């Protein structure tokens, strides 16, 4: 790690730690931004680096959300009675119970989706290209429809997650969730960064560029594909668990398995920033979140129209994303050696 990077990272870290006190009104928005960045960067592991464009990571996100909330309730109270009572609370978590439940819930929310990804990985990841994309789209929607019919997790009427306990300060809830999601973001960044500096990333890239050739070179592609997907699933589940607590209410198709919104957002953020780069999804998620919040606030009702147009415009005109555009413009800064003459010749050809 060179000196510039160190300064950059410490700036971001300090800003991240100070942000909830600098902008106290935007704590929830900042927490959502952290979750979005986590989702986009982990989608990028198998979408960008591995070339398996999935609409189905929402499955792990939704699973994590339901699991975390269910564990948090189920550890102390009967789950069925909780969901039956809906909004009227007959049970109240004490602060210790809440935090204990949340901690165990998050662990379960991260691990169970990872195991599920490993189990279904062998069948699903054998599909290629658009078959994989449509299959994962189907998985996400099917999970939403099915969980909407299961009584114990609230079926169609939704699941209210445990409300934040009274710890004496009104700001505590926002700060708790902000630091939780910010910590997850740092964890994700470190994980993704260290993955990208290993041979594992090169294997993923080989799978993306030509899977048959990679297999012919002796790489067990299936194993690495499943591992890549499991890493995505781990962080998606974690993000889902946090988001469930943050939103406070889980609905099967509108919050948890929202393939139409969150499932597309992940893909879009990664593409907007630049697929297959470390910083791309982070930049993409930040820009997207600002844009989205602006639209959701000022053009309420028209947000999905704007979203549809945005998807079409991004996909058609910026398929390489911001990082791809920067790379084309300043290749030297990305460590690519460019011959001046060659470049001029290319410009003239154009």
């Amino acid at each position: 790690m060179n000196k510039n990077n160190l300064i950059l990272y410490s700036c971001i870290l300090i800003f991240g730690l100070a942000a909830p006190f600098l902008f106290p009104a935007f704590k929830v928005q900042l927490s959502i931004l952290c979750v979005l960045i986590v989702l986009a960067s982990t989608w990028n592991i198998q979408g960008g680096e591995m070339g398996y464009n999935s609409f189905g990571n929402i499955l792990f996100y939704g699973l994590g959300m339901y699991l975390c909330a269910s564990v948090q309730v189920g550890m102390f109270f009967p789950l069925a009675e909780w969901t039956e009572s809906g909004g009227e609370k007959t049970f109240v978590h004490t602060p210790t119970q809440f935090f204990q439940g949340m901690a165990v819930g998050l662990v379960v929310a991260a691990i169970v989706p990872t195991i599920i990804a490993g189990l279904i990985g062998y069948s699903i990841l054998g599909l290629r290209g658009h078959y994989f994309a449509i299959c994962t789209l189907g998985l996400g929607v099917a999970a939403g429809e099915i969980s909407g019919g299961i009584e114990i997790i609230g079926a169609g009427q939704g699941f209210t997650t445990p409300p934040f306990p009274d710890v004496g300060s009104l700001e505590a809830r926002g700060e708790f969730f902000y630091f939780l999601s910010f910590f997850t973001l740092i964890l994700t960044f470190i994980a993704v960064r260290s993955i990208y500096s290993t041979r594992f990333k090169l294997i993923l890239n080989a799978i993306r560029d030509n899977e048959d050739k990679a297999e012919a070179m002796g790489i067990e592609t299936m194993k690495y594909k499943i591992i890549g997907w499991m890493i995505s699933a781990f962080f998606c589940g974690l993000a889902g668990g946090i988001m469930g607590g943050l939103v406070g209410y889980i609905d099967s198709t509108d919050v948890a398995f929202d393939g139409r919104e969150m499932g597309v957002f992940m893909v879009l953020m990664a593409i907007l920033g630049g697929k297959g780069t470390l910083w791309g999804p982070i930049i993409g998620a930040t820009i997207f979140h600002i844009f989205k919040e602006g639209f959701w606030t000022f053009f309420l009702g028209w947000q999905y129209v704007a979203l549809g147009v945005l998807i079409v415009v991004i996909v058609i005109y910026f398929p390489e994303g911001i990082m791809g555009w920067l790379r084309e413009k300043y290749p030297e800064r990305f460590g690519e050696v460019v011959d001046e003459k060659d470049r001029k010749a290319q410009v003239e050809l154009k």
Partner: protein
Amino acid sequence: MDFMVFQYPMITVQACLDGILLGILFALIAYGMALQWGVMNIINIAQGDLVILGGYIAYFMYLYGIHPAWGVIVAPVIMYFLGVLIYKLVINKVVDRDLFISILATFGISILFMQLMNFAFGADVVLANSDYGTTMLFNNNVVLPNSKLFSAFISILFAICLVIYMKKSKLGRAIRATAQNARAAKILGVDTEKVYAATFGINAALCGVAGALISITFTIHPYMGLPYTIRSFMIVIVAGLGNLPGVAMSGMGLGVFEEFADYILGTEFRIGSVFLLLVLILVYRRFKLSRKREYLK
């Protein structure tokens, strides 16, 4: 779970008949999808939304006092031009790109249409009443709305017309040539750009017909598009591209499956079972193909 299906044979007959009549409609939509997939190599996620839009055209005619059955003629005309417009604005920029790009771009169109329809027509479940009455079969045990028979008849009629058109007409030949080899067709003087636009328009028109029929026989709702896309995708991958009898058969099979899922699992799992079936079919296909690959080894 409800096992009435197995105790009362008449319910089985009812489910099968309903399923087949519904499946013919699915097959019509799937035919459109197979057409554009084969010719332009595009998977259109907005397919279902085009269907629903066609349904709303018929519903609007019904609201203004015109019999909704005329929608079968009006909807495809409007939808054809809409399809060409969508092609000119969006699709022609993604035709020769990666398939995933086309999926994502049409996903955007789908979200756009969904919300515009929600604004224009409201979020209520509606149907256009055709007043065709019902037919009772088997001692009044099986109820068959005449509108379903009508819709199946019209779907078959349109499919036959289209097949003949594709075989005989100049444009049909150009479309088939482009599907086989776009570059060679271009060299031989086929304006592929025009062919693509026409293909997408024909697909949209088929969706319009199917939508108008759906609004007469079933119900429509702005957010109901995606299941139709998934159904037609499923039918196409089961039947294979360019296999028309296969499309018809697997369409009917899917219809019957859905009716039985509806009876056995309950209506709330109907859409879920469709999506789950898609996943199962793709996984089955993947294992079948990988076995073939092992033979090659």
